């Protein structure tokens, strides 16, 4: 029996568990095939959307884990000490603008932000970077321009998205990152194991591989769970439900923000979906484009596992009014 502090972890024979899991998986596959699950439309839709979200998102998680492991192993401590000494009014916007240089969508930015904060960056700056990079990164802005170019407002939508995203990231980072890293970050059970294994003589490359795998596994499971929730919602809730409120600017924007949460789209693709909501005013479409990369079903799980103290609820309280007001102002300014 391994005694780990106050809790007692029950060790299990790995061989026995692996066999048990293999048998369960084989049983599930055989039962599904025998019952003809592949012919059930809802099952097909769910599995296809679920797996496509995970297949697309996991490599980005992997990319985020790669950067995170590089930061942990190869960036010297003094670099973070130097950054940590910068005044917050400089750190915060600089970190948010750093999103321009990090072409990874939201799933990849969470592990990087966690690592930056744990290594000494001010939590507000780490959060600002995390919230800005899925909106400001060059691939996202280019796809937004391409999607809206056809409507003759590619430049305006890019400016609106980048501007509102930057404001949201800075304000939310400042509002939610006022506490210390220890109060903000949730301790991960595998942190101690990582340190043990990294320091066990495997060298820098071994430590890098350990951190990479550890971040991938930790974040990956929440992408899987979030993808399942998003797929379930996409399979069960008709999108036409929100079309009924399309004409009302405020309710339309709220409806598309809700839809962005449900759909959990990659920020590199969401502009192509937003542009199809032709019944909605541009304010609502912009709200969809700024809100979705910051809070959605799969991110809610990732945030919950990474941060403490009802982070998602507090982020919602900050993000909703900013996105709503900003998108409505954008519509007025565009006219």
């Amino acid at each position, binding site marked *: 029996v*391994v005694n780990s502090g106050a809790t007692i*972890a029950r*060790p299990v024979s*790995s061989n026995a*568990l*692996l066999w048990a*899991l293999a048998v369960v*998986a084989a049983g599930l*596959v055989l039962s599904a095939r025998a019952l003809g699950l*592949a012919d059930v439309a809802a099952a097909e*839709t769910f*599995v*296809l959307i*679920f*797996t*496509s979200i995970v*297949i*697309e998102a*996991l*490599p980005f998680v*992997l990319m985020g884990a*790669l950067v995170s492991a590089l930061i942990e192993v190869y960036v010297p401590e003094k670099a973070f000490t130097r950054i940590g000494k910068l005044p917050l009014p400089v750190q915060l916007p600089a970190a948010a603008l750093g999103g321009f240089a990090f072409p990874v969508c939201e799933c990849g930015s969470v592990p990087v932000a966690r690592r930056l904060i744990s290594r000494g960056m001010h939590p507000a700056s780490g959060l600002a970077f995390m919230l800005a990079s899925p909106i400001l990164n060059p691939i996202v802005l280019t796809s937004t321009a391409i999607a809206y170019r*056809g*409507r*003759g*407002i590619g430049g305006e939508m890019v400016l609106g998205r980048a501007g509102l995203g930057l404001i949201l990231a800075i304000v939310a980072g400042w509002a939610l990152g006022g506490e210390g890293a220890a109060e903000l970050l949730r301790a991960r059970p*595998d942190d101690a*194991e990582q340190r*043990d*294994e990294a320091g066990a003589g*495997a060298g820098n*490359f071994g430590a890098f*591989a*350990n951190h*990479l*795998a550890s971040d*991938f*596994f930790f974040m990956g499971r929440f992408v*899987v*769970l979030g*993808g*399942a929730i998003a797929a379930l919602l*996409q*399979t*069960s809730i*008709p*999108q*036409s439900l929100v*079309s*009924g409120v*399309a004409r009302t600017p405020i309710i339309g924007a709220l409806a598309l923000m809700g839809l962005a949460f449900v759909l959990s*789209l*990659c920020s590199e*693709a969401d502009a192509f*979906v937003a542009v*199809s*909501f*032709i*019944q*909605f005013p541009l304010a609502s479409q912009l709200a969809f484009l700024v809100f979705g990369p910051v809070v959605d079903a799969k991110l809610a799980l990732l945030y919950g596992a990474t941060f403490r103290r009802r982070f998602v609820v507090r982020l919602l309280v900050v993000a909703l009014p900013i996105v709503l007001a900003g998108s409505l102002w954008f519509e007025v300014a565009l006219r």
Partner: protein
Amino acid sequence: MPDGRAFRTLVLLAWAGFFAYLWLSGEVRRYLGPRTYWVVPFGAAVLLGAALVQLVTLRSGPSGQRLSMKQIGGLAVLLVPVIAVAMVPRAELGALAASRKSTGGLAPGAGYIAPPPPSSHAEPSFIDIHFANESASYGATRGVVDGRAIELVGFVSQPPGSPGATFQLTRFYVSCCAADAIPYSVVIDPAEVTGGFSTNMWLSVSGVLRQDGDGFSVEARDIQKVPEPQDPYLY
């Protein structure tokens, strides 16, 4: 006895193998759009590399901690998508997905500007007919005009209510992955063509475009049942 790293190595190998299968079998087209195909070989290569490094440390490094049930559950979650694909292989987005993903038939909102037609000389397809219903100039530029001969391949999303009645033929347009698929539908009038057209059946419809107060539809001259295309989406 294998430790936690052995299980982690297995999960990494399972995902690397899954990505390799998607890439080599062409099944990647079922899940992703061309813009994101690259994530599959990237994922396969990096995960395989990570698995090999784990294998090396497994052989040469000190033994790691044994896993608790909770840790094993966390790792097993990552295998769920792979198992789901084995349970429901070759899944398709069909009529149910089209009904869920359709945003309804409301008219465009105030200030809406139809996109300028693409410079492509390709034959008009579902998306062109959709936009031609919103903009006459778009339709004229893309050749979506009354009387034009057209051929469409899609699946039946709304079957005819009675023999000879109209039905809807649909195709999904995908940007990054199936989660962002958008359905575009065209009304098909089978006219003299007879046959049972059931939900999710893939059809090749040849006919001419007809325009009335409800927009463009296709008056069919010939309708053939066809297998699902290797690439089920349009881009």
